[in-house]
Every structure is written in structure tokens, then in C-alpha cells.
């Protein structure tokens, strides 16, 4: 589904992600203000929700950067069609991996959902590296 992400949709989805993770910041701030139980008294949850909020927001910005970069660098479309969904998936998995892992966690460690964070990070890393390395004249993938 995401393979069909157009440049425009990539930028719009990146902005949507940015808005989403900025909104989680409002939520966290409200919990501090209201001294919500399960938040102020749970350092592990607090730490992982913060990680999710911060990573999600920054990685949404990174997606905007990647989107603009591949346009400016005229990255061949076959690569760009993969870079865009990889970047979006990566930001989503990292941000929500932290948040969901922090919401449902064990006594000393985050919950199982945190395991998607490295997967998301690898996708993002791949997206950034490809955006940097693939040149406009690079051969189209597929049989010669």
C-alpha cells in the first residue's frame, strides 16, 4: 500500500505524523499538570512515553527532510518509491514502539511492543542512507 506513496502524500503524511506526535506532547504535559497516577509515579512509563513523543516528532521532521531531499536530488523513482514508505514506517514504529512499550511495561523493562523500535530505526537508517547515496543517473533496478 505504502509503495504507492507519492511525493505529495509523503510530505502530507510526514506533517500528519508531526502533528500526531506533537499532540502526544500535550497529553504528557496534561498528565504532569494533573499529577496523573501511573504517570508521575511510574518513572519507566514516563521515560518511554517521553522517548516516543520526542522520537516520533523528530523523525516526522526527518521524513520531511528526506522527502524534500529526494526531490531535490532527483533520486530515481524506483528508489524514491521505497525510500518514502520506509521513512514513514520507520518513524511510526519508533514513535509508537516507545509509547506502547511504555504504556504496558514490566517491573524493570518496557513491554514487548518496544521490539519494533529497532526495526523502525533500521528502516529509517536505510531510507536516509539511500537518499544520500543513490544518484540520479544510477541504473534502474531490474534485469539489464
Amino acid at each position: 500500500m505504502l509503495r504507492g506513496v507519492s511525493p505529495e502524500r509523503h510530505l502530507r503524511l510526514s506533517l500528519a505524523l508531526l502533528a500526531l506526535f506533537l499532540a502526544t506532547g500535550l497529553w504528557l504535559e496534561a498528565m504532569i499538570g494533573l499529577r496523573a497516577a501511573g504517570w508521575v509515579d511510574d518513572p519507566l512509563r514516563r521515560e518511554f512515553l517521553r522517548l516516543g513523543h520526542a522520537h516520533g516528532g523528530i523523525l516526522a521532521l526527518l521524513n520531511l527532510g528526506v522527502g524534500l531531499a529526494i526531490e531535490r536530488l532527483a533520486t530515481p523513482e524506483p528508489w524514491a518509491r521505497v525510500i518514502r514508505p520506509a521513512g514513514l514506517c520507520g518513524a511510526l514504529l519508533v514513535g509508537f514502539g516507545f509509547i506502547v512499550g511504555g504504556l504496558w511495561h514490566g517491573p524493570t523493562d518496557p513491554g514487548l511492543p518496544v521490539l519494533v523500535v529497532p526495526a523502525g530505526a533500521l528502516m529509517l537508517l536505510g531510507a536516509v542512507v539511500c537518499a544520500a547515496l543513490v544518484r540520479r543517473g544510477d541504473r534502474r533496478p531490474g534485469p539489464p
Partner: protein
Amino acid sequence: MTRWGPALGLFGPALVWVVVVVVGLVRTASDLEAWGPVDRREAAVVGSEACGVCHPAQVASWRQTYHRTMTQPAAGAAVLAPFAGESLVYQGFRATMTRTGFGLPHLRVEAVDGGPPLLDVDVALTVGSHRYQQYVARLDRGGGPGEMWRLPVAWHLGERRWMAMNAAFLEPEGEPGDADDYLRHFGRWNDNCILCHNTQPVPGLVDMAKGTGEAMGFASRVGEFGIACEACHGPAGAHVERQGDPARRLLGGAGDPAVAHPGRLTPGDESGLCGRCHGNRIAADVGAVLREGDGFLPGEPLASVSRPIFADSRVGGSEETPFAARFWPDGTPRLSAYEYQGLLQSPCHQGGAPGGLGCNHCHDMHGDEPDMQVRAGRKRADGCVGCHTQDASHGGHRTVDCQGCHMPRITYGLLEGMISHRVSSPDPGAWVGRHDQPDACTQCHVDRSRRWAAEQLPRLGLAGSRAGEEASEELWAPRVLLDLHGGDPVQRGLAAHALARAEVPVPAAIRLAWLVDALEDGYPAVRWMAWRAMQRLAGPELGGVLADYDPHAEAALRVPAVDALRARLGPGPLTEAQRLALEARQDTTLLSIGE
């Protein structure tokens, strides 16, 4: 490059990660060693630092407690006394506290009138940090190079002064100049203090003569100095090993049976953890305790290795009840370190069954209050309202909470009066005519008799026994004053403590006049408690006179200060004949009770 090259390049590593994670989780989930039962007895002690890697908040809260500083190597900030050349003369001996060239605390004890030193030792360990700090030195007195001894002087933190350990025990003054008497409480650490002041202690009694039994010695060791994580959670080696696998931690959720979690035990078993030290007990196999430790594994019933001492406990088939003096006539413990017994005797405990009262209900080892470690939200009446309906009119006392009447301060320990941990209801009428046990009402209404207290109960809407015939002495003075003069040493100490309580509805000037006589008590510990009580009550105008009084000084040095106080405060309410009659009874109730 194939058509799928870009997709594989970008999503491939993430897919590999997913495969690795799934394989790892499935493998751990099906690994019996990760989930099966563990022989916790064989697990190694890892120490609090290892626990702090995963449980930093819990270790940080524990670090604030007096449990942590129960025993420490005598170095740096652990040593609370100055050891700057102070000296303490007591019973004909002078103790001088200095430091070695390396800064180590050092003690030298010698007779005031000369002769070779009785002791000349470096301090190796400190014990305690709350009320007073005791010191331990390595000294081979026939038990091998590992033998360690509790020294005869301690540093009192509240008064910031040295005191002889003999004076910290509730017993009569010793014989001046008698070295054996002076060293009465020069106790061996290896088979005494080690057990309740350290984590996973092993006294290590060994036969140094290899089978002859003629030279027993000690190769003592502890898992960690002080009461640390594994004192309550058990040895954590197996837990740490298991939890080293991140998949085990992620799949495990809350809890690993490789360690005990007191909050998940029944009230009976979690209280047993505390009862291990806060409830003196008789081991099933004393020899094994001296060799290998007490054998108690947190999470298992304390009764599996020992039985708690009660008033009627017997030892070795004897008909004697050697521990009876540690309890009031109704069986309530009257010394500290019997809190567990008090709980067991309380109806609220319900035999330790789920729903019953356990130590954890009121105390929190990881709370934010190191003093008494009372759980947040369970202070005062809040500890009771979870089970008992809060009724503002109950008891008719506006300024007294549940604890004041149902857990009265009738326990002696560490030169203080402490609350009883046997939850009970006062019935002063039943004890009219008796002089052998204090009651909740008159410990607070220090100007009243027990008959008066009994008569007030119906007025307050409370049930109680009808007051019986009063003994003639009960007409002379309030109950507490009779105890202060004629009670046994525990009663005298507790009476002095009661007279200084802030909530007592009697002017301080009157209470001060009553306390003066106790400054001449035959027991130094009682004199100390009376002196401290007067310090709490006295205004600045008495401060100088009280400063001239030393409860541990020889009688000839104490008398002028007592006379000066009596002249300032006036006589007590008892006639000379009454006072002598009560004091005569003291002699028949002599008892020697430890800390």
C-alpha cells in the same frame, strides 16, 4: 541489481531483525530453564549494586534507610562518632577514642588507677545509625583470627555523646573497677550481632582443631553488610542470571519466582520476613545456625526454621519459662525486637491468612520516610480505616488516634518507649489493684488512676470491665507515678518516657517535679530516660542545671545536680514513707534485660 533490490535493501534489515526477535522470543518462551523452578537456596548473593542495575528506584529508596547502615565497615562517613581524642570514664575505667595514623577509629580502655590496657583495638565495623552507633573490633580471644567483638562504648546520636554499653542495658549498675563487670556486654559479633544486622549472614563456626572440638573458631561471612535487598528478597543470583536474557524480561511481565516479592506473599509469610529479626526466636537447630546461618529463605514460612519466643516458651525439654520476663503478664511483649510476636497476637493478623494484617500494610521498605518506614497513606488512623469504619465519635478523644489507645507505648527498646505491636483494646478496669503492667489510658493520663480511667469508659461510649478493689497504694498517686517509683525497670523507664510525651494533658512543671526522683534510680538506663524526659520538658531556665547532671556519673557527682533540681522544682507528690514503700518493692522485681 534485481527489481526488488531497493525494497530488500531498505526493508531487509528490519525483516531480519523481526525474524531474530521472533526466534529469540519463541526460544525463550519454550525454554524450561527460563521459567521452571529454581533452587533458590543454592543461588548466590549478588549484592545491592547488582540489584540497582535494573531496580534503581528501589535501591535508591533503600539507601535512605537505617537498614542499609545497620552494619558498615568503619571508614569515612559510616563512622558517626568523632574519635578525636574524647574519653569516657565509667565504672573505674577510662575509654579513649582516637584515630590511627591512617585515620581508622581506635579505642583504648584502661583502668583509671593505672595498669595495662584492658583493650587497645582498631574499630573494624559500625553497627547502627539511628539511635546509637556501636563499634566492633577484630580480636582473637580464642576463636581464631576471624573473631570480632562488640566494644564496650557506643555513640548516642541524639545526645551526641559517648555512653558505656553497660548503661544502655536495662540492668543494675556494675561493680566499679571490676574488669569482668565492665566488659559484661563485650559481646562476640560472630554468633550474635551478625545474624540480625547483615544480609545472608553465616556465623561460620568451625572446628579449628580439626575434629577434636577443642578449639572452635569463626570464619564468618555475610552476603552484604547491613540489611540489604537480599535480606527480604532472598539470594538473587538465579534471578540475575535468568533476567540477563532480555527476552525473558520482556516475556516475564511482573515477577520471577527466582526471588521473593514480599508484596505478593500472604500476610503471614511477608510478616515472617520482618519477624526474622523483629521477633526474637528459637532456632530448630542452633548448631546449624552457628555453622551455616539461620537457614531461612525469604518467601518460605519462618516457622520452618524456628519458633517465635513467647512468655511460655521453653527450651530443651525444661519446664522453666526463661523468657517470661520479656513479656507483660498478659503475654504482650514488652521489649523491642518482639514486634512480630505482637502482630501474631493481634486479632487483625487473622493467623496470617490473606486479608489479615501484615507488616507490609503499615510499613513500606521503599517509601520516602526512613524513620519507622511507615507506608504513605497508612499513617495514624489511615492504617486502620481500610478495615474499620472511620467513626469520628469513637473513643471520644479528639487528639488521640487509633494507635494511641490500641497500640500504646508499653514497649521498651534502645533507651526509648515504643508502641506495642499487639493491637488490643484498653480495659483499665480489669487491672485495678494490679501493679505489674501499664495500660494505654494512664500512660497518657499520667495524673490519673486506673479506677478513674475505668470510670471514664462508659462516658466515652466504650465497654470495659467494672473496676475492682484498689490496692492501698493506688490511692497515693497516679498510676504512672507508682510505676516510676515502684515498678520494675521496664515500667520505670516507660513511666519516665510517658511523662515526657507531648500529648499528655498535665503541665510540664508538674511532670518535671515528678521526674526528679527517677534521676536517682539504681538503673543507669532508667536515669538516662528520666534525664532525657526532663530535657524534653524543661525550658531554658532549667537547661543549665540539667546540663550539670550526668545519668552515668558516680552517685557522688550526681547528687548535687539532683538536689539543685529538687530545690527548683519542689518535692514530688509522694511522702517519704510512700516513696520508700514503693522503692522497697523495686528490689523484688529486679531483672536484667538487654537492649
